[in-house]
């Protein structure tokens, strides 16, 4: 079965802390994505990556960075967490060859910044 694993389901951090959200997929997918989900706003794309060491800004990249050192792992970094980054974060992956953009999602990481 397709598997996207997010390392933490629930996190509570303090304002100003550096936060790492980790995502690993076991499907050998080229593409990986980070979305944030907020009520009434749906899913908004933060960053995505089409290959190792490559990254592209999504619609709301401010305050975030990403790292993709290996094909299976895509990390989201909050350099200095702020309360407005309290949200549900969803990682997803998709294949390029033979795929038509269908995404496979992890279970999500709910981050609370105090």
């Amino acid at each position, binding site marked *: 079965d397709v598997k996207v694993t997010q390392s933490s389901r629930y996190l509570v951090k303090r304002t100003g802390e550096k936060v790492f959200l980790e995502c690993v997929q076991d499907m050998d997918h080229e593409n990986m*994505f980070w979305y944030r989900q907020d009520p009434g706003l*749906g899913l908004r*794309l933060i960053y995505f990556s089409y290959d190792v060491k490559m990254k592209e800004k999504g619609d709301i990249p401010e305050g975030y960075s990403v790292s993709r050192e290996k094909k299976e792992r895509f990390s989201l970094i909050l350099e200095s967490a702020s309360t407005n980054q309290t949200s549900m974060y*969803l990682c997803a992956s998709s*294949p390029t060859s033979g795929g*038509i*953009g269908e*995404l496979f999602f992890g279970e999500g990481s709910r981050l609370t910044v105090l």
Partner: protein
Amino acid sequence: AQSVAQPEDQVNVAEGNPLTVKCTYSVSGNPYLFWYVQYPNRGLQFLLKYITGDNLVKGSYGFEAEFNKSQTSFHLKKPSALVSDSALYFCAVRVSHYNQGGKLIFGQGTELSVKP
């Protein structure tokens, strides 16, 4: 701008009745359209997609969706709702990128509530 709209924040139906969750889109070129479902505190699960061909697409859990090019709509339907269908539903459209992978733009979501 390319976008997806789900005009209803919430849809309420009685168990056994048909359900419809609405979605409209705005894209350049031929659309690739998707429906996902999310249960509480879980990630999104793929339900179905439209790429080309028959306008009526069948998916998981008895759901289907009707693509209407003239109305730029892709409504999700089920003939007989179950209480277990209660969840948050997202419509999405693929936006092409110079890389063939593309990315998905999501609607704001519709909360479906099915009462016994």
